[in-house]
């Protein structure tokens, strides 16, 4: 190939703006308006990449999204791997590297693999992985796998915008069909959005002849676009409609060339017009993958758009009429052109200065790093520095297929066309099998008329010479000689498809998985149809009988950044924050996430955190501790049937609770499993507060709503989640009451007035406060709830008053130790998805309750009554030993085999007791207190003795101390 840039012409390039970039370290010159591919071709760079499996040298095939070979990694700020050189604009200073090639595409050191090709047929790696010792090969295989390289140091320059958009009609594709349809729809009074993946509108009219309404195509394109734009319709160039999802949501990815990340559009149009064009197919002949063998249509595009003449001595091989325009144009541009048409009859006339050879096909191509000639099927040899192929056109019906559109096989077009229409979607132009501009415009007119608008406008008229669509199918044939490539990107040959058929992978989906036909970045845009047509030939079926693989988004690769949008970093899963977060930070709190909340784990900074936690837990028992419990659920249940409602929702009877009192209880799931635990507060006859676990508020709230609406009715109760309305500050310890007495709270703290499990109402600095005597530590505790925005002065005064008592501020880690010392459980940690309430020692309601509650029936199954259920226990270790690892299993030996009999759920070193404390779920545990069992962790066995869950102050008098 001796490609070159012509001195004049090129509708897309701006010769006054020369640019330079690097490819595999070499400098490439071009002009603004070039793609990387057109600039490489202009510089006569033949080898631009290496094939996936055999590392065969590969050149540019196409001029658009279908490109299987010319993939490059773009470096720098907007680094992108596996970019198609044919769609990537060349930019000054850009750094591009070939993929799958070391050190360069031209001198790739893995090129030797091609000589072993017959030892690595389709499914070679699948079979290798089934060898017993495949791990020996794994590192080498992994090193060779994949195409482009991801830059590990790459950091996003920003987040991608995401736009939601609505319109009457979304037109995908701004070629002749799309432009005509958009204009017709706009003239009929509909709001139109027109998207196209090219930077400039026009589609095939950018390089194929056409005269419309008496004007040159370029003038008609400019006029149509101007009319749409001035009427306020949205036109998005460089934007790919990559997917149609349920209910006709269309995903668009819009590129920018100013350093911004791409923009994702979610469009909800009333109607969709697909004007997505068609893609040219290769022809089957031996060595049809050599560099210098291109799509004929691509060569015409490079000539007319970029003034690049792809060769001097060109062979054009075809089975259809479309290559004739290409052959004529190349001859006119000065190349020697031989046009080989496999059809004997019914061909168009030979273009001027083109030698037409009828009734012949290519048998093979020759050359090493680029093609140097071809041999016809009669043995004739032709010299060539470039071979152009047109094997017919495959309509781009991916989006129609994604929308679950059925395809219909057309023998006349040798292609699948859209079949029965899909609601809300019309397909026009080459995507619908139209060839001439007259057909294209007539189809656009029909499609827009079908949108149901009364105001009809006339479609444009084609006034120039018309393209014809004559074709004789030329599919790859079984038993062909030589290495005939079907899928360039995945190195799938005719022999690989034959092997798949022999091994009975004849379904088209199996063929794809077995050979990788149609996978990877190009998704088989040039290879799928030839591959399945070959399978049809091998298995004696027709092409429609073989069918296509399922069309799935995306049509072309979309950056993950587009899908992520702003949902990156902290915004990926935003944490909930305490009203007093900043106050805690200035007190040296170290924050961690607990169940979606960012909470102080402990205070005293990061240094020696274990000691800080132990100090907090020890001092909390000695005098008094302050703790921010604002995350605790506060869901109000209000209404005439509130008492009946909480009775139904709770395992425990709650309607007997007196106003002003609290009761601890479980909520179960309908399968009887403990779902949440917590304290229910009764404010008055018709008003309760569900104080559920911090991380469970949303789930409990949803459950209350569901039962309210589904069982009790909208008017029976009202539910209000007031969790974040109020901050809850907890004072706990032997000196808790003394500390509170130093504050002016406007209520009596006398135990007769405010006993354990009661609430009181006070006023602090003019704001109502609710004080609940509930305890998660086992010590006398007061939970003070106050408006979240007024919590800071109260907290400050609690700390101030606390100085008198050597009060300690504790984080969640110390609280976990305190509650474990008492045997208080955390649902989901000390329970699992099988734990029933009686497994936790709470059997009363199960045996006594007569009224209905959630999960009731499930407590009386065989499974619920099994005598070897896992039950909550405490576990102690021999003196001097370290705490048990959480998750370690209690084991026993049955017939010489180790078997689990439960596991450790919580385990801490108790600074107050001076020994480890642990909780666990152990088989029959409640009846085995005092028994010593084996505990296994990572192969090591230690001893533990089963005890009651409560290790500290079992008498419970500290609650009142």
């Amino acid at each position, binding site marked *: 190939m001796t490609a070159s840039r012509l001195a004049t012409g090129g509708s897309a390039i701006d010769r006054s703006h020369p640019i330079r970039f690097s490819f595999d370290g070499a400098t490439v010159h071009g002009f603004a308006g070039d793609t990387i591919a057109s600039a490489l071709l202009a510089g006569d760079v033949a080898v631009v990449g290496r094939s996936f499996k055999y590392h065969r040298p590969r050149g540019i095939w196409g001029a658009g999204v279908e490109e299987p070979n010319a993939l490059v990694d773009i470096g720098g700020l907007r680094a992108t791997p596996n970019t198609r050189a044919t769609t990537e604009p060349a930019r000054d200073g850009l750094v591009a590297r070939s993929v799958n090639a070391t050190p360069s595409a031209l001198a790739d050191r893995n090129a030797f693999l091609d000589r072993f090709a017959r030892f690595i047929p389709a499914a070679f790696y699948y079979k290798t992985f089934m060898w017993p010792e495949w791990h020996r090969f794994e590192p080498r295989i992994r090193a060779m796998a994949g195409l482009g390289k991801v830059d590990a140091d790459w950091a996003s320059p920003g987040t991608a915008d995401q736009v939601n958009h609505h319109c009457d009609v979304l037109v995908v594709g701004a070629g002749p069909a799309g432009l005509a349809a958009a204009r017709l729809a706009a003239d009929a009074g509909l709001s139109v959005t027109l998207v196209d993946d090219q930077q400039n509108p026009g589609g095939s009219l950018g390089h194929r002849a056409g005269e419309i309404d008496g004007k040159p195509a370029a003038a008609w394109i400019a006029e149509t676009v101007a009319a749409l734009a001035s009427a306020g319709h949205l036109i998005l160039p460089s934007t790919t409609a990559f997917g149609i*999802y*349920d*209910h006709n*949501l269309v995903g668009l990815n819009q590129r920018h060339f100013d350093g911004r990340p791409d923009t994702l559009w*979610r469009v*909800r149009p009333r109607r969709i017009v697909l004007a997505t064009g068609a893609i040219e197919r290769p022809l089957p002949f031996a060595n049809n993958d050599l560099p210098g063998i291109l799509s004929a249509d691509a060569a015409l595009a490079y000539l007319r758009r970029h003034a690049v003449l792809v060769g001097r001595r060109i062979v054009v091989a075809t089975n259809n009429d479309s290559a004739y325009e290409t052959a004529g144009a190349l001859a006119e541009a000065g190349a020697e052109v031989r046009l080989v048409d496999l059809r004997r009859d019914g061909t168009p006339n030979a273009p001027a200065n083109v030698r037409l050879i009828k009734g012949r096909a290519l048998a093979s191509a020759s050359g090493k790093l680029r093609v140097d000639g071809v041999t016809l099927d009669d043995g004739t040899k032709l010299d060539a520095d470039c071979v152009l192929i047109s094997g017919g056109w495959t309509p781009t019906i991916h989006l129609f297929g994604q929308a*679950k559109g059925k395809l219909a096989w057309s023998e006349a077009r040798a292609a699948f066309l859209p079949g029965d229409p899909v609601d809300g979607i019309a397909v026009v132009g080459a995507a619908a099998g139209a060839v001439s501009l007259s057909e294209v415009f007539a189809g656009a007119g029909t499609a827009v008329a079908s949108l149901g608008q009364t105001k009809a406008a006339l479609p444009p008229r084609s006034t120039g010479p018309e393209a014809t669509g004559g074709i004789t199918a030329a599919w790859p044939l079984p038993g062909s000689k030589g290495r005939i490539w079907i899928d360039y990107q995945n190195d799938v040959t005719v022999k690989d498809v034959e092997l798949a058929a022999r091994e009975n992978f004849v379904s088209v989906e199996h063929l794809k998985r077995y050979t990788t036909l149609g996978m990877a970045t190009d998704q088989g845009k040039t290879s799928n149809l030839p591959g399945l047509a070959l399978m049809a030939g091998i298995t004696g079926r027709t092409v429609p009988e073989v069918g296509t693989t399922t069309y799935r988004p995306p049509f072309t690769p979309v950056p993950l950044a587009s899908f992520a949008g702003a949902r990156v970093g902290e915004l990926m899963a935003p944490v909930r924050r305490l009203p007093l977060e900043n106050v805690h930070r200035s007190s040296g709190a170290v924050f961690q996430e607990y169940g979606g909340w960012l909470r102080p784990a402990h205070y005293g900074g990061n240094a020696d955190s274990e000691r800080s936690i132990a100090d907090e837990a020890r001092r909390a028992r000695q005098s008094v501790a302050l703790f921010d419990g604002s995350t605790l659920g506060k869901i109000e249940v209000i209404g005439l049937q509130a008492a009946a409602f909480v009775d139904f929702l709770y395992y425990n009877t709650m309607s007997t609770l007196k106003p002003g009192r609290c009761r601890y209880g479980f909520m179960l799931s*309908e*399968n009887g499993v403990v779902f949440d635990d917590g304290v229910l507060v009764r404010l008055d006859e018709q008003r309760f507060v569900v104080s559920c676990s911090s991380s469970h508020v949303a789930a409990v709230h*949803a459950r209350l*709503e*569901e039962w309210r*609406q*589904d*069982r009790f009715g*909208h008017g029976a109760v009202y539910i209000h989640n007031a969790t974040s309305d109020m901050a809850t500050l907890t004072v706990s310890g032997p000196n808790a009451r003394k500390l509170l007495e130093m504050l002016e709270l406007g209520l009596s703290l006398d135990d007769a007035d405010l006993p354990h499990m009661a609430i009181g109402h006070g006023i602090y600095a003019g704001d109502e406060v609710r004080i609940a005597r509930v305890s998660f530590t086992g010590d006398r505790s007061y939970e003070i709830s106050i408006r979240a925005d007024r919590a800071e002065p109260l907290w400050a005064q609690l700390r101030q008053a606390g100085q008198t008592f050597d009060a300690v501020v504790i984080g969640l880690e110390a609280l976990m130790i305190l509650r474990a010392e008492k045997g208080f459980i955390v649902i989901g940690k000390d329970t699992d998805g099988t734990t029933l309430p009686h497994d936790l020692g709470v059997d009363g309601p199960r045996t006594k309750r007569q009224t*209905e509650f959630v999960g*009731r*029936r*499930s407590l*009386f*199954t065989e499974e619920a009554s099994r005598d070897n259920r896992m039950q909550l226990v405490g576990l102690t270790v021999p003196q001097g030993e370290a705490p048990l690892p959480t998750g370690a299993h209690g084991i026993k030996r049955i017939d010489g085999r180790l078997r689990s009999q439960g596991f450790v759920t919580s385990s801490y070193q108790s600074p107050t007791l001076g020994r480890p404390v642990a909780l666990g779920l152990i088989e029959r545990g409640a009846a085995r207190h005092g028994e010593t069992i084996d505990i296994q962790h990572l192969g090591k066995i230690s001893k533990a003795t089963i005890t009651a869950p409560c290790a500290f102050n079992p008498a419970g008098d500290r609650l009142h101390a």
Partner: protein
Amino acid sequence: MQLFPCPFCGPRDETEFHYGGDAGNIRPDGADVPIDRWADYLYLRTNPKGTAREIWVHMTCGEFFVMERDTVSHKVLSSAALGGEHAA
């Protein structure tokens, strides 16, 4: 992404909704409900191919409602508040 018609808010993206199970899966009350009946209530689902009547909740307004949709074509046939009035 499907568009579901909340009877209270109109068409909204499916990501705003949660599935709530088969409509008409009536809860049997009592500790002595036959165990097979209880197991059916807990676990047996019709999983129809075609028209399905389902409970959904629109999380942004918190309302549960009944929606009829086709599990093959994903066409929404109707949606109605639990009270019964039609909205789709």
